[in-house]
């Protein structure tokens, strides 16, 4: 039985590493004629996540929109369809939840080895590590 990677999830945070992940995802999608779903998570401190006004931080929402638009352009240049999605919440948890949600039908998650946080860390970033452990879908870590 062949396993096809039709839908690839790429979490983006604007770092160089996540862009490398995006490039790899584009490369993979070209091989299997798949589509990419880009997910940008705006970090919200726990308490505000429940609060309705927590979402209303327009400034950083703009930043995320720009990030997704850039990603779309990058994918379109290579002829790949990319759908952007912006969520507010805790990055690791929400990425894993999005990947596991059967409605989204994600076949593979591609993450950069490190993101914005813990820049000094030599090893895997905390969010990548969290997604790696919690996602029920295959995860590709791009170094």
């Amino acid at each position, binding site marked *: 039985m062949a*396993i096809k990677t039709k839908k690839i999830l790429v979490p983006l945070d604007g770092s160089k590493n996540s862009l490398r992940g995006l*490039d790899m995802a584009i490369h993979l999608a070209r091989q*299997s004629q798949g589509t990419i779903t880009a997910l940008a998570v705006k970090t919200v401190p726990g308490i505000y996540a429940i609060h309705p006004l927590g979402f209303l931080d327009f400034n950083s929402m703009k930043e995320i929109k720009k990030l997704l638009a850039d990603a779309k352009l990058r994918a379109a240049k290579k002829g790949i369809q990319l759908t952007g999605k912006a969520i507010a919440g805790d990055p690791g948890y929400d990425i894993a939840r999005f990947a596991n949600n059967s409605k989204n039908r994600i076949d593979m998650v591609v993450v950069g080895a490190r993101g914005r946080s813990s820049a000094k860390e030599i*090893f895997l970033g905390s969010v990548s590590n969290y997604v*790696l452990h919690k996602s029920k879908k*295959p995860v*590709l*870590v791009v*170094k």
Partner: protein
Amino acid sequence: MTANNFKKILVPLDGSTYSEKALKRACELVEAFDSKLLLLYVVEKSIPINLLDRKEYLEILRKFGNKTLQKANVVASQKNISSKLLLKEGNIVNEIEKVAKKEKCDLIIVGSKGLGSVTRLLLGSISNKISQSSSCSVLIVK
């Protein structure tokens, strides 16, 4: 962007169902990217074993390793993929990394869990260590 990113794919095996899954996924990628397949089994030497039985025990492990590799080779050749078989001895993670570096692999594909039952719920210890410290990309097959 280069035309082919995955020239060499390394698949460490341990004989579990998860590593078989990883192999299946690897075959698919090999077909898509026209890359080379490397199969690796590491006989673990670092665990303290009873000194008297040590030789015998390693012999059994070696036999099991060869069997696993042959089995994997059959699976791969059924899909018309030629693979290179490697049998190493030593610390599992170290050996995998050494091979990845020596053979200049572009991708390591591992199952999310191995034969250990303690970490059934979470990622296996070996997969975790590989993903943390390897210098090339890692695909964790669930």
